[in-house]
């Protein structure tokens, strides 16, 4: 029996190694997505079976005899021992946002290989390790948050730096997600109608669950889902109607303002009215679509069209500038390693676990699942013709404003595409144009529609699938923005409450309005800046988001390393020190380049300097001078935010190293409270 087991695992390991070798070494020929799927699934299986078991048994010493906070406190509300599959569902729904879909889509500009390898290896050696260790750490500290653990285990300075970092990251995250929605909906009456229709549907569901059938979530979700699907289909009628289509066709700036107003409303309205019902809709559609995409890929088995590596590894990419190192690794954060997960793993999840050993399946396993979602996103990008992929994702400022200019530029890069092909594709998906639809969401929707249509329904229903995919992406992006604005508002109120007590009261409406406006104003500013950016905004905002998210992961790994060192098992600190060193090298070098690179498409200060030079040389028309000054200011603001992130992380890492040195040099007896809370 044992021999059979060894044989099976040897086979899985060999299959994974073979698939990874095929994916990595194939050049100049199309490969099947089967290789990508096999490489991912086999690596996850081996990593889960062996590495996570090692982490659970040796590093964390998870023990079911030790009571969890849910067992000990069990207050029937926040702390409740819950079935591990239910907790897995909660945890996965919370960590799987739009990041693992958008990041890999953008990173495909380097080819399918860098992103795929980083997603698979980064998750098993970094992301899943971080999630498991932070979850286990929080589990043994009554569900304390990452910020609280940083303050207690590293120091007050580290704790404050972590809190400040989280708030800043949320601002950048929501701005960049808002930009993705703007780019997906600009000039698209079908998409705008469908996404807009989810708002009254969510409000009606909220009213139903609060007053008509209190707490009946399933009932409301079922009819809510039916109405959302109806809205997807009705969108076609709206887009084809001469009188209705103009009512749902908006310029990017108008869409940005609408999202800002919506974010403010979602933050000040009662949760039950808008946020929670949208979250229910989003969670069910998210899980259903991810399962459907996996099935679609397995049934259709499309060939990979994108090369393993493109010419843009040299840093000249049209979607975002910068070489493969470090920019591929900050473009894909969620899906490989994401600091945001540490907030979820030290939030609700540890308060629900009934057994310590469940942390392995939930912390490590859910991250592998998210990584698999990211692999599917890269597959959806890689099955498109490369010329189409670049035509959709490249900003007009790079490839030219007319279809002829754009296709000529892209074909000149070695990725042939014609205006007629793009026109046919746009008509197939029910859009007027797919040129310069930056942000990742439209090309992901085209890829998903391609897979779905080839699995079910054919070309005739491609437009329905495309708009279903747009609705799916927009729905949970908006959910992330609603929830993020609200959590940010509470953090702001918490902070301001120290300055003047009434501002800290979460039920005092002047404070609610003031802090909501502050939070929405902060991310709204960056969103508007991105919309006005001639390069499309994604070029500057996505790297900023990636850097900040990975720096938060560096904070989480510093905390995790501190927990290992303090628990007397410093010999295993390599499990977090390895990913920590890697993350510091990519984030600090990316941050340095964003600040000081002389290449104007990379360096914020170089770009500001160039614009300043144009003004000084009198090359800017008088009417454009105020706009140019605004761009210069934005560059400098982005530079300041990047420098601030880097400074915060260095403070925490140095503080953590000091703490490790203190513990190790004093050869203290391990503090048992780090492993046991009596």
């Amino acid at each position, binding site marked *: 029996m044992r021999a059979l087991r060894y044989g099976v695992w040897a086979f899985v390991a060999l299959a994974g190694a073979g698939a990874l070798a095929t994916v990595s070494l194939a050049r100049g020929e199309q490969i099947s997505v089967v290789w990508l799927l096999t490489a991912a699934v086999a690596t996850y299986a081996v990593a889960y079976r062996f590495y996570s078991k090692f982490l659970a048994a040796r590093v964390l010493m998870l023990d079911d005899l030790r009571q969890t906070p849910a067992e000990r406190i069990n207050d029937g509300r926040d702390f409740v021992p819950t079935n591990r599959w239910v907790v897995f569902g909660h945890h996965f729904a919370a960590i799987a946002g739009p*990041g693992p879909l958008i990041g890999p889509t953008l990173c495909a500009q380097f080819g399918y290989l860098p992103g795929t390898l980083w997603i698979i290896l980064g998750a098993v050696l970094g992301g899943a390790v971080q999630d498991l260790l932070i979850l286990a750490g929080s589990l043994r500290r009554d569900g304390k948050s990452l910020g609280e653990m940083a303050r207690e285990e590293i120091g007050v300075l580290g704790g404050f730096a972590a809190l400040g970092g989280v708030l800043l990251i949320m601002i950048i995250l929501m701005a960049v997600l808002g930009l993705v929605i703007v780019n997906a909906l600009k000039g698209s009456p079908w998409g705008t109608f469908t996404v807009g229709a989810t708002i009254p549907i969510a409000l009606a569901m909220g009213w139903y669950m609060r007053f008509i059938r*209190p707490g009946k979530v399933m009932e409301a979700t079922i009819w809510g889902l039916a109405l959302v699907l109806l809205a997807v289909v009705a969108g076609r009628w709206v887009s084809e109607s001469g009188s209705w289509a103009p009512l749902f066709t908006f310029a990017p700036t108008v869409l940005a303002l609408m999202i800002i107003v919506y974010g403010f409303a979602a933050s000040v309205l009662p949760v039950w009215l808008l946020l929670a019902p949208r979250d229910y809709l989003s969670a069910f559609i998210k899980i259903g679509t991810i399962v459907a995409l996996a099935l679609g890929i397995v049934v259709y088995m499309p060939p990979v069209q994108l090369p393993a590596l493109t010419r843009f590894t040299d840093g000249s990419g049209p979607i975002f500038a910068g070489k493969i190192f470090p920019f591929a690794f900050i473009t894909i954060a969620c899906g490989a390693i994401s600091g945001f997960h540490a907030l979820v793993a030290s939030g609700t999840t540890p308060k629900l676990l009934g057994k310590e050993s469940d942390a392995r399946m939930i912390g490590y396993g859910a991250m592998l699942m998210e990584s698999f979602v990211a692999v599917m996103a890269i597959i959806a990008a890689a099955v498109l013709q490369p010329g189409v992929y670049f035509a959709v994702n490249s900003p007009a400022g790079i490839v030219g404003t007319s279809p002829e200019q754009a296709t000529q530029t892209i074909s000149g890069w070695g990725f042939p595409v014609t205006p007629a092909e793009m026109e046919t594709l746009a008509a197939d998906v029910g859009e007027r144009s797919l040129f310069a639809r930056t942000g990742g969401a439209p090309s992901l929707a085209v890829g998903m529609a391609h897979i779905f249509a080839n699995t079910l329904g054919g070309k005739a229903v491609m437009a329905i699938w495309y708009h279903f995919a747009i609705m799916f992406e927009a729905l949970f992006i908006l*959910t992330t923005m609603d929830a993020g604005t609200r959590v940010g508002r509470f953090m702001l109120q918490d902070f301001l409450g120290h300055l003047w007590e009434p501002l800290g009261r979460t039920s005092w409406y002047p404070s609610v309005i003031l802090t909501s406006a502050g939070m929405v104003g902060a991310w709204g500013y960056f969103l508007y800046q991105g919309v006005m950016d001639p390069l499309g905004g994604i070029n500057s905002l996505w790297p900023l988001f990636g850097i900040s998210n990975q720096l938060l992961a560096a904070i989480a790994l510093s905390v995790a390393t501190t927990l290992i060192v303090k628990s007397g098992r410093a010999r295993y600190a390599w499990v977090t020190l390895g990913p920590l060193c890697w993350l510091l090298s990519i984030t600090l070098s990316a941050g340095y380049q964003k600040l000081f690179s002389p290449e104007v498409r990379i360096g914020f200060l170089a770009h500001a300097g160039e614009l300043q030079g144009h003004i000084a040389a009198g090359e800017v028309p008088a009417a454009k001078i105020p706009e140019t000054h605004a761009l210069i200011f934005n560059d400098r603001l982005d530079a300041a935010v990047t420098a601030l992130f880097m400074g915060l992380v260095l403070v925490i890492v140095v503080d953590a190293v000091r703490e490790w040195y203190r513990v190790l040099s004093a050869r203290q007896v391990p503090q048992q409270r780090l492993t046991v809370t009596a």
Partner: protein
Amino acid sequence: MLRRYIVMFYNELRAAVREWTGEAEYERYVRYCAQRGQAPLDRGRFFAGRLEERYRTRARCC
């Protein structure tokens, strides 16, 4: 036999989904109040209060 398995599977799935969506929380809360001799809130107010609490800290990842 098959019918029994299907019913069992349906019941377990339904219980898991009710737990996942928070629908099952109210029954647990009522039991908790009964043990302590407290008067429970009605379902609507309990539901609204739980959601307010949940979204105070619930972070959604990117």
